């Protein structure tokens, strides 16, 4: 029971970011499991919004591969149009949303559209989906990503989902509501924006991960909080609940 996978720790850390009673733009995969775990532990009154038009207070009875799977519709609180839930997001009524990505930079801008490689070639990725909307309009957002140097450049090659842009004051200058990334949760650490500069800095190292390892996996001169914390490992209760949500480890292995 004490052994856990890096993904399990990421999900537990994501769950701990949610507060009870919050309105959450849930997303899929790891964030979905984080939301379900939070609901079964410290945030039973959290409300889940899904961009396909679904609002849920209770968890789906089975593991979901997509938000439109039938178990997410059965016993939902409400089903309707995308603009019903996106309108709430645009109004500023959504507390927190989760996004993933291919690249994140030192100001928390996320790229899921295209990566420019050496020379002229490009790597085409699926695109924004709702991620750009969550990053633009939620009161805060959380990024979940594997921590690799190529995924953590100083500046992303394309801003799909705006974080703090070029730093302090940028969001206001371009017309975005306050919001912005509250945390970047990786398989090695947790980064949060410096309150003054809005640059991401290391605030917590996961169990067994060294500072040097995180620095080497980050493409800019990473600032370190003092003191830097150790991410608490998942509790036995968190692990038990999480494994009951995904018994075959589809998203957690």
């Amino acid at each position, binding site marked *: 029971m004490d052994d856990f996978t890096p993904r399990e720790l990421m999900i537990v850390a994501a769950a701990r970011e949610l507060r009870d009673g919050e309105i959450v733009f849930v997303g*899929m995969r790891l964030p979905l499991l984080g939301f379900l775990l939070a609901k079964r532990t410290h945030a039973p009154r959290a409300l889940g919004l*899904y*961009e*396909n*038009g*679904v609002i849920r207070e209770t968890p789906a009875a089975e593991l979901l*591969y*997509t*938000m*439109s*799977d*039938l178990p997410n*519709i*059965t*016993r939902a609180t409400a*089903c*309707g*149009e*995308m*603009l019903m839930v*996106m309108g709430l*997001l*645009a109004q500023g009524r959504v507390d927190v949303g989760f996004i993933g990505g291919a690249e994140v930079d030192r100001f928390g801008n996320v790229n899921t*559209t295209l990566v420019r490689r050496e020379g002229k*070639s*490009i*790597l*085409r*990725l*699926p*695109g*924004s*989906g*709702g*991620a*750009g*909307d969550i990053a*633009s*309009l939620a009161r805060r957002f959380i990024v979940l990503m594997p921590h690799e140097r190529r995924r953590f450049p100083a500046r992303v090659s*394309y*801003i*799909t*989902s*705006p974080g703090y*842009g070029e730093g302090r004051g*940028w*969001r206001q200058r*371009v*017309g*975005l*509501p306050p919001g912005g990334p509250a945390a970047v949760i990786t398989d090695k650490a947790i980064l949060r924006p410096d309150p003054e500069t809005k640059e991401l800095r290391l605030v917590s190292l996961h169990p067994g991960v060294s500072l040097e390892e995180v620095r080497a996996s980050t493409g800019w001169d990473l600032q370190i909080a003092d003191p830097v914390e150790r991410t608490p490992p998942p509790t036995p209760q968190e692990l038990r609940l999480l494994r009951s949500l995904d018994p075959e480890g589809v998203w957690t292995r």
Partner: protein
Amino acid sequence: MTRKLMSLSEAIGRYVADGMSLVMGTALEAAIPFAAGHEIIRQGKRDLTVIGPISDILFDQLIGAGCVRRVIAAWVGNVSEGSAYNLRRAVEEGVPHFVDVEDHTNLTIALGLHAAALGVPYLPTRTALGSDVARGHPGLRPIRCPYTGEPLLAVRALAPDVAIVHVQRADEFGNCHLWGNLGVTLDAVRASRSVIVTAEEIVSADLIRSDPNRTLIPGFLVTAVVHEPWGAHPSPVVGYYHRDHAHFREYHERTRTREGFLAWLKEWVLSVPDRSRYMDRLGPERRRALRIAQSALSAPADFGC
């Protein structure tokens, strides 16, 4: 009222022409009109513009089959598996040919269709301000609010030539009952010049009128109605069948190479004449496993007087 019931090949042959713009996949991962998409491929339509919020492999199939010139979408991929290999080959290498991608977010697709549904040229939003999605975008122009002076994006109205939607049940006049997550379906129908409906069941007009609040697509907006059971497989339809996750996984594995995709296309699209033969190929066991196991009926609503 006009009866609009016809076969899928007739509907696609009559109402989808080379060079048209089509909105599909409007309920996101559910009720994706795969049967209609496969008929478009079999009829060899070319130079299409495909429009939609996300597309769970349907746009990838149309791109790989060479039907698409332009994509206007927020996301093109395989929701449970990741990348769309045909999109990648088309954009990165021009295989089978280059396609233009006009990137959006889900909200800007929804607002573009909503603008057309309201008959206005654009709608303003704050989403995507400062992002590279909005940079130099022909359909997302920076404006100032005439009241407050604040910066906004003007999302250009998106008025497709054709909307293709899959629904649970329709009558022969095109009045449709649909339920579950709706995504941008209703705006897509109102925004488009013609509408092709594929339906799991064709029911009487009397049954439709028993529950007018569920008639989310009124028949006078509909151009063609097609009876197409399993018409959304491998995507799910509420009340009928589950998402076929294994099919999405298999598509992902087999389409990593161009040769793999062409073999897949031949097996599942080009060598089957219609959806009923496609479902034969899927086999009775797989169909049984995908059918909903347990009904959960809603309480009836009283419309008496």
